[in-house]
């Protein structure tokens, strides 16, 4: 065993975040504040066989009997994240129309790996920081946060993750209603 279990990134999942309070929390509602448009993205291997890939430990014919704590598993993605693109599917503003790349309007808060104390990192920086990271779970998770206050009533985005094996994972957010607290 190399000290970690490799896994393939084959799937992408997205959830809406409510970021009105002190921390962003997952929400099932498709309503957000225009100043707090945020998503949770998870990249993972679709099959449930990641842990089965652990190699058995050699015991040289002896039947050992030991008491152990539950083992800590460490994981490493077999693919690197080359880029993350965000494309707006509806008009982002009066000047930025649908199907425009708005990646520069978004920042990342890494969850797994937890490589930032509090502040966000840019998308290119996130891609660099995730390289060769040993993970505590067989997935890469992050929050994608819009740093602008949107001026229109709706928003919808397509998230495209480019991997080092040439694969692109893509997922669309729900159509969001943007409402203010007033």
């Amino acid at each position, binding site marked *: 065993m190399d000290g970690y279990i490799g896994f393939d990134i084959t799937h992408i999942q997205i959830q809406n975040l409510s*970021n009105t309070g002190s921390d962003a929390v997952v929400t099932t509602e498709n309503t957000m504040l225009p100043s707090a448009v945020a998503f949770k993205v998870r990249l993972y291997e679709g099959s449930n066989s990641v842990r089965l890939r652990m190699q058995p430990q050699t015991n040289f014919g002896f039947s050992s009997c030991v008491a152990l704590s539950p083992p800590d598993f460490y994981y490493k993605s077999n693919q690197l994240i080359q880029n993350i693109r965000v494309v707006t599917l509806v008009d982002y503003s009066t000047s930025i129309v649908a199907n425009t790349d708005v990646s520069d309007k978004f920042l990342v808060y890494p969850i797994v790996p937890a490589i930032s104390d*509090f502040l966000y990192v*840019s998308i290119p920086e996130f891609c660099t920081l995730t390289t060769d990271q040993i993970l505590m779970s067989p997935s890469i998770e992050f929050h994608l946060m819009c*740093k602008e206050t949107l001026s229109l009533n709706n928003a919808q985005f397509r998230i495209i993750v480019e991997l080092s094996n040439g694969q692109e994972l893509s997922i669309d957010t729900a159509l969001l209603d943007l409402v203010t*607290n007033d």
Partner: protein
Amino acid sequence: MKRLLIALILTCIPAHYVFSYTLTGWFEESKISVFGGVATHHIEKRNSTEDVNLMNYLSYRNEFYLGVDAHVYLHEQWQFNIKTYLNSSLRTDDVFAKLIYMPHEKIGVTLGYASIPVQYGLYEIHEQPQYYTTIPNSDDVYDFAKNELFLAGLAFPFEGGKFSGTIYLQGGVSYLPNDFSFSWQKKYDSNERRLVEYDIPESYAFIIQPEVEIRWEIAKPTTDTSIGLQFQGKWNYSKRNIDYTRNIYTWTTDNKQTEIISHPKQSIEGVDWNVGLFYIF
């Protein structure tokens, strides 16, 4: 350091007896006293501008204390005094030491050191409207910094009947060490996050500190010993400001805004008095 000081005080009594036999002439007399008192500090508050004025958030412990004081009259004209307070947290953070040289019966020269705990109200400093504020490692928030005083001055002993005492006129430098504090802030109803740092350099201020000690001898059990009541009081005054550098990182660590903040000086006035019992031997 605290253990050392307590040990020094507790050593004064046996040391006197031990060394009085082996180093005859070095220890002429010793005095130990226990007392209770109150120390208060008043810091002038000023309406600050949009920039936080750290002087408004600096605070000393203003409370009742119990104390112990050891005063050793060394060979010839030298005296040494060390004193500590036990505060309501059962800590001996306040420490005072003084070396006195008496070239003349009526006047002496002193060198003094004091360490007094001070605290910044960090939650109030960092708290900002429109932001949720978190101070990481908040256990450290209530760690007291040490305001150290380096003093020099004159001592004027007096005596009349059963009363005796000393007036000290001292002045010197009040030192506040450097400090660093940061908070994480997340804006209400927004994705905006920021990291706010306060980098406080060490600072010095001039201080004056007159002091008086009055003793009233009640009884004289033997020719070499006496017991009585004691009053100690002191007042100090200084003017200082606390400049600092504030860094605000908004969204990412790349987006840094640095400002050097300075405010006019504000006064600090302290009164400290105690009464207790002394034993001279």
